C-alpha cells in the first residue's frame, strides 16, 4: 500500500466544557477528494484548523507523506503545501484582488508579476478574474474564486475547502467541480467539507463522518445513498418535512410595481417587483446573494418604507408602515443575519424574545416590560423548537448558529403570523435542525399563513415552496409552480453562470 498524503492518528482537542475532537483518525490519499461530513458542532472546523496550524492538538499525531507534521502556525502549513479556502473571515473588502492574494502567500512576487500570474492561473482553471478589482465589489462566486486562486498559486498538495458551494448558482457549482476535477487529475488532494450530500456523491472519492467530535464511520459516497450518509451524520433517522395537500385561500400579500433604491453602498436596488402570495402558500425566492434579497426583506419588514400602494396586506396598503405597525397587523419577518439583525448578540434570549414579540404577545404595558411573561415566551420558544441552551438568561451570542436560528425562526412562528417572510432560514444549520425549521414553516402554511421564503439553498426551496421565483439584479422573475421545474430552468431564472459577472453593477 502506498503512503497516504496525510494521515491523522488519534487527534484530540478539548476546549473548556467540550471535547471538539476525540481520537479522530483517517487518511487522505494522493490525488483523492476526501469528504468530511458532520453536523454543525461535530468538530469539522476544529479538525481542519489543526491541519492548517491554527489550533494545536492536545494529543495525536499527523503524518505528511510519512513524516511527522505539526505546523506551529498557518505559515508553516502553507510552506508544506496545505492550502485552505475559508468559509468566512478571509477576504479584505477594501483591498483589491491582487493584494488579497499577496496576503495569503509566503513570498509574493512584485504586484505586476502577480497580476499577470493571477490572470494566467485563473484562465487555466476557467475562473476569470480581474486582479485590480476591489474585493468589496465582487459577487460571492467571484470572491470564492479569489480564495481558490490564492491557494492554487502556491501549488498546494492538499486543498481544504470549507462549504464552498453554499453561495453558488448551479452553473457556478459545475464550474467549480470542473476546476476541482482538473486539480485532482493533476495529483492534488482535496479535503472537502459540505452539508450537501448530493454534491459529495458526485465529487468525492471517500468520506469520513464526524459526530460529536468522534469519527463515526467512513464510506464511499458514490456507493452510498444521501439518506444513509445523513443518518450517519445525525445518528438517528431523519424526518423529511411533510407537505400536506393544501387549499390556498385569498391573496394575503400583494406586491406590485415595487422599486426602491438600496440603502447601502454595495447593495442592489429593487426594480419593478411584482408578486402575490395566497393564504397557505409558500413562495420560494431564489437567487445568488447580493441580488436584492436583503432589500426585499427590508421592504417587506418595513425597515425600508415605500409607496403605500406598492405593498398590500389583505387589500390594505401597508407600504408606509414601519415594522412595529406591520407586526401588529400580522406581517412578521425573520432576517438572514442572525447576530446583529435578527438578534442582538449580547442580550439574553428573554430580551431578544421581547424585541419582536412585545406587540403581538402583549409583553409590555404602559411602556413597562412584563419580564415574567417575556421569560415564559422565551421558554416556550426554547421548548417548542428544541433550542439547546442552559436557559433563557443566556446571551444570544453564546448559542451555536443552528440553535440561535431555531430560536429566531421559532420566535416569529409562535406569534402565529398571517404573513411570514424569512431570509435564509436554515443558513449554516445542520441537517436535523434544518428539517425542524422547514417543518415548522410548512406547518404554519398548513394553518393558513402566507409564507415568503428567501433562500440560496435550492434544495430547500424545492422541498418546501409551492411556487418559485428568482431575484436577479433586483428584478424578480415571474413566479412558477415548483412541481416540474428543472435545475436548468431554475439556473436560467437566476441569471445563469454569467449573471455573477454583472450581479453588482
Amino acid at each position: 500500500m502506498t503512503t497516504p498524503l496525510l494521515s491523522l492518528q488519534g487527534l484530540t482537542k478539548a476546549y473548556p466544557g467540550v471535547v471538539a475532537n476525540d481520537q479522530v483518525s483517517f487518511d487522505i490519499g494522493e490525488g483523492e477528494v476526501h469528504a468530511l461530513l458532520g453536523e454543525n458542532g461535530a468538530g469539522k472546523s476544529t479538525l481542519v484548523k489543526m491541519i492548517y496550524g491554527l489550533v494545536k492538538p492536545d494529543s495525536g499525531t499527523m503524518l505528511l507523506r510519512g513524516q511527522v507534521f505539526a505546523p506551529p502556525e498557518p505559515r508553516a502549513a502553507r510552506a508544506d503545501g496545505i492550502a485552505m479556502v475559508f468559509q468566512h473571515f478571509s477576504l479584505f473588502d477594501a483591498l483589491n484582488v491582487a493584494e488579497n492574494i499577496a496576503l495569503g502567500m509566503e513570498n509574493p512576487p512584485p504586484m505586476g508579476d502577480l497580476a499577470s500570474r493571477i490572470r494566467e492561473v485563473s484562465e487555466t482553471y476557467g475562473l476569470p478574474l480581474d486582479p485590480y478589482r476591489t474585493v468589496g465589489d465582487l459577487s460571492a462566486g467571484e470572491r470564492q474564486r479569489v480564495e481558490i486562486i490564492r491557494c492554487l498559486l502556491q501549488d498546494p498538495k492538499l486543498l481544504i475547502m470549507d462549504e464552498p458551494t453554499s453561495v453558488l448558482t448551479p452553473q457556478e457549482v459545475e464550474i467549480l467541480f470542473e476546476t476541482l476535477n482538473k486539480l485532482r487529475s493533476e495529483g492534488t488532494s482535496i479535503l472537502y467539507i459540505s452539508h450537501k450530500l448530493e454534491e459529495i456523491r458526485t465529487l468525492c472519492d471517500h468520506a469520513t463522518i464526524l459526530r460529536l467530535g468522534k469519527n463515526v464511520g467512513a464510506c464511499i459516497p458514490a456507493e452510498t445513498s444521501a439518506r444513509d450518509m445523513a443518518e450517519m451524520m445525525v445518528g438517528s433517522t431523519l424526518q423529511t418535512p411533510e407537505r400536506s395537500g393544501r387549499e390556498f385561500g385569498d391573496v394575503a400579500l400583494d406586491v406590485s410595481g415595487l422599486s426602491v433604491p438600496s440603502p447601502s453602498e454595495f447593495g442592489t436596488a429593487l426594480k419593478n417587483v411584482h408578486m402575490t402570495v395566497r393564504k397557505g402558500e409558500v413562495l420560494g425566492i431564489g437567487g445568488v446573494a447580493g441580488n436584492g434579497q436583503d432589500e426585499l426583506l427590508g421592504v417587506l419588514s418595513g425597515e425600508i418604507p415605500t409607496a403605500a400602494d406598492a405593498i398590500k396586506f389583505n387589500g390594505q396598503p401597508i407600504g408606509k408602515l414601519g415594522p412595529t405597525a406591520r407586526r401588529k397587523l400580522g406581517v412578521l419577518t425573520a432576517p438572514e443575519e442572525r447576530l446583529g439583525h435578527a438578534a442582538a448578540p449580547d442580550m439574553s434570549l428573554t430580551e431578544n424574545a421581547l424585541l419582536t414579540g412585545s406587540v403581538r404577545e402583549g409583553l409590555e404595558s404602559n411602556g413597562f416590560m412584563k419580564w415574567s411573561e417575556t421569560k415564559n415566551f422565551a421558554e416556550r420558544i426554547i421548548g417548542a423548537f428544541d433550542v439547546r441552551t442552559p436557559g433563557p438568561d443566556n446571551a444570544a451570542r453564546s448559542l451555536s448558529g443552528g440553535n440561535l436560528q431555531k430560536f429566531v425562526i421559532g420566535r416569529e412562528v409562535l406569534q402565529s403570523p398571517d404573513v411570514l417572510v424569512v431570509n435564509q432560514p436554515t443558513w449554516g444549520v445542520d441537517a436535523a435542525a434544518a428539517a425542524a425549521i422547514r417543518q415548522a414553516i410548512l406547518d404554519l402554511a398548513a394553518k393558513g399563513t402566507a409564507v415568503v421564503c428567501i433562500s440560496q439553498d435550492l434544495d430547500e426551496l424545492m422541498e418546501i415552496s409551492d411556487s418559485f421565483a428568482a431575484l436577479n439584479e433586483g428584478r424578480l422573475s415571474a413566479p412558477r409552480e415548483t412541481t416540474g421545474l428543472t435545475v436548468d430552468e431554475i439556473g436560467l431564472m437566476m441569471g445563469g453562470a454569467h449573471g455573477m459577472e454583472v450581479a453588482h453593477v
Partner: protein
Amino acid sequence: MDLGEINPVLLVASLMVAATPLLLAAIGELVVEKAGVLNLGVEGMMIVGAISGFAISVETGSPWLGFIAAAVGGAVLSLLFVLLTQVALANQVASGLALTLFGLGFSALMGQSYVGVKPPDMGEIHIPVISDIPVIGPILFQHDPILYVGIALTTAVWATLKYSRVGLILRAVGENHDAAHALGYKVIKIRIMAILFGGACAGLGGAYISLIRVPQWTEGMTAGVGWIALALVVFASWKPWRALLGAYLFGGITVLQLNLQAAGVAIPVEYLAMSPYIITILVLVILSADKSSAPASLGRTFHASH
C-alpha cells in the same frame, strides 16, 4: 490696517513651522488607525514628548538628544495604551482619553523645574546655493532639520503603506483582523508596533512645539494640537498626503490670521481665531467626499479565541 506689512515669504516659511507638530502627530495616528486601533491619547503623548524632549535637551545641551528622548517618551506612554487595550483588551476610547488626562498631569509634574528655562537652539540647515535662491530659498531650504524629517516621514509612510508588504499587512490587519489572524499574521504584535510608532511620532510633534516653535516649557502647551491631529486623520480619509495638505492648510491659516490680527483687519478676533478650524474642516470634508472610508476594524478589540 496695513496689509503691506505681511511678508508673503516669511508667511509661507512660518506656516511650515506651524504645521509640523500637527503633521508629525497626524502621520503617527494615521498609521495607528490604519492598523485598526483608535488611540485618542495623542494629546497626552505629545505633551509628554514635549517635556521629555525639553528636559533632556536642556540637561544635555543637545536638541538632537532631546528629540530622541521625546520620541522615546511618547512611545513609552503609548506602551500604557498597549497594555490596556492590547493585553487587557480594555475599551480603546476610554483608554485613549485616560492616556491624555494622564499625560497632561504627568507632564506638568515632570516640567515643574523647567518653567522659564530656555532650551538650546537647534539652528537651521543652510544648504549652500539652493538656500540662497530668492523667495524659494527662504521658503523651502532654510528650516530646522525636524521639519524635513516630518516631510520625509510622510513620504515614507505613504510609500510603505502603498507599495511595501509590511504596509499591506498593516492595512489588512486594520481592515479585517479575523481574516488576518486566519492567514497567520500576528494581529496584536503588528498593532503594538503601530501604536509605538504613533506614540513616537506624537512625542516628536510635542517636542517640536517646546523646542522649536515656542521654545520654552509651559503646562498644557500643546493646547489641543493632538485633538486636531485626530480630526485631521479622519478628514484626510487616512491618506498621508491629504494629512500633509490639511496640516499645512491649518498651519497656514493659523499664521495668516495671526498676521491679519497684527495688521489690525476689521474682522472680530474671534472669527479670525476660529477660521483655521473651519476652513481646514471644510476643505477636507469636500476632499473626502470620495468613497474611501475608515479601516473596517477601527476601534474594535481583537481577541484570538475565535
